């Protein structure tokens, strides 16, 4: 970054939080010597929405199905550039990146003589930090009114795209503005990658309440050093105390980057799938227990185990994917899901999630009636510290 360009701390410090977006485009415009706009992605990842910038020069929204949630898939940047140029004419786009998260972009018309790449990184940091204090970013990311349950869901979810030790992670929930009740979660810890995909019975407010409690119980257990079985037991007990006659199906797992070993518990949830490098799709079936929040008698949580190695992709999903109604009145089904995965071919975790989401959306012109959730883990051969831009982000 050139001297004179403010860094993230200065951008934040010079403005109150809700004015940080304006401040970012003001500084960027001064650097570029022409108007610059800032864009973020809608929560469902299909539109770029203007966060700040001249309303006469820059459109409010640009159709761009390049996201998983509000995060832009890095390998979809060429596609995004093409869509933007198609809409606004010759222009230059600098992605705003925090670690691996492309959370938006700066946009100038034509080709300015300066490169705003480094500044865009500082702007991304400042905006992410500011969004903890203001609705300015959250409001722009929502194209439609969001139901309370869906708002809770958005706030429960971790970053949609991530790199953890030895793997890429991508997760998404549709439709995003309503329904609610599904969640996914993960954490890259010293003892491995924790993951969960869960689906609360029913929809809307009661499902959101149940999911919030369950994710709280699971995170608390994880952070207290509990193992998988203990975490499942604590979540089960927490849900039972609600006495709401509601339950939660879930797959809880942990994956070890060194041995590539996945251990998991299936509590009444759709069977995880493993996509091998050669295109074969296998079910990770085995002994399962009934959903969390139900008590028949003393229950056990059987732990299953399988290898998920570089070249493989692990898919955890909710029944909103397989039970999505298609135009002909039937459902995608488990076989349909396998066919979709086969058609996607080998691709990154993020592109797998986006491809599945497109297939779910395109299955029918009608809105989704249930949450469709997916979490993909793609083990990589390189170590996370080997990535140049990760180093740059840490030292930048």
């Amino acid at each position, binding site marked *: 970054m050139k001297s004179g360009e403010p860094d993230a701390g200065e951008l934040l410090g010079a403005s109150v939080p809700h004015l940080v977006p304006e401040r970012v485009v003001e500084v960027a415009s001064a650097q570029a010597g022409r108007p610059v706009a800032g864009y973020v992605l809608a929560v469902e990842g299909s539109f770029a929405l203007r966060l700040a910038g001249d309303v006469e020069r820059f459109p409010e929204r640009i159709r761009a199905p390049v996201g998983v949630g509000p995060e832009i898939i890095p390998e979809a940047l060429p596609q995004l550039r093409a869509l933007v140029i198609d809409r606004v004419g010759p222009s230059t786009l600098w992605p705003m990146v925090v670690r691996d998260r492309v959370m938006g972009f700066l946009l100038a018309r034509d080709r300015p003589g300066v490169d705003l790449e480094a500044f865009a990184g500082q702007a991304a940091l400042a905006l992410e930090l500011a969004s903890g204090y203001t609705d300015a970013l959250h409001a722009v990311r929502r194209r439609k009114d969001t139901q309370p349950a869906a708002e809770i869901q958005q706030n429960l979810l971790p970053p949609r795209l991530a790199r953890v030790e030895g793997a890429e992670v991508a997760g998404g929930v549709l439709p995003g503005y309503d329904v609610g009740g599904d969640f996914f979660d993960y954490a890259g810890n010293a003892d491995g990658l924790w993951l969960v995909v869960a*689906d609360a*019975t*029913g*929809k809307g407010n009661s499902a959101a309440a149940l999911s919030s409690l369950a994710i709280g119980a699971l995170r608390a257990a994880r952070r207290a050093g509990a193992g998988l079985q203990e975490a499942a037991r604590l979540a089960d007990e927490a849900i039972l105390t609600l006495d709401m*006659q*509601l*339950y939660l*199906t879930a797959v809880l797992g942990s994956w070890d980057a060194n041995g590539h070993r996945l251990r998991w518990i299936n509590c*009444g*949830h*759709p*069977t995880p799938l493993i996509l091998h490098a050669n295109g074969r799709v296998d079910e990770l079936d085995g002994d*399962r*227990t*009934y*959903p969390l929040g*139900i008590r*028949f008698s003393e229950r056990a949580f059987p732990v299953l185990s399988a290898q998920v190695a570089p070249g493989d992709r692990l898919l955890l999903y909710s*029944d909103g994917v397989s*039970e999505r*109604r298609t*135009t*002909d*009145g039937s*459902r995608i089904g488990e076989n349909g899901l396998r066919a979709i995965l086969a058609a996607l071919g080998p691709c990154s975790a993020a592109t797998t999630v986006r491809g599945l989401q497109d297939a779910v959306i395109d299955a*029918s012109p*009608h809105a989704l*009636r*249930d949450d469709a959730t997916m979490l993909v883990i793609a083990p990589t051969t390189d170590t996370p510290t080997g990535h140049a831009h990760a180093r740059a982000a840490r030292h930048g």
Partner: protein
Amino acid sequence: MHEETSETTTTIFDDVAIVTVSGELDFAHCIKLAPELNAALRSSARAIVIDLEAVSLVDSSGIALLLNAFRHLDHTGRQLAIACPMGSPRRAFELTALDRQLPMHETRQEALAAVGAN
């Protein structure tokens, strides 16, 4: 959109309430089925048979409804039997591992026999 019509009827046979369901037992159908099922639960019938022989698919809402019916009857000491053939309708029970907890039977005949209605 083409969708299968979903219907529910209740009949009484040998003091057993038989709730017959057809179509897809999903969220929309559960909203219609719940009052019918509740009426059967509140009735003086000594047992309830839920016949899913003509059901093509059961989703998580359907599972929740049947599970709550089972719990209700269990509390009042009355019997439940669910007739649900293998294949697509049985799949949701298998995935939730509730096929091992709920009184599942392959056919209506077997379900009726299980509650002693002949």
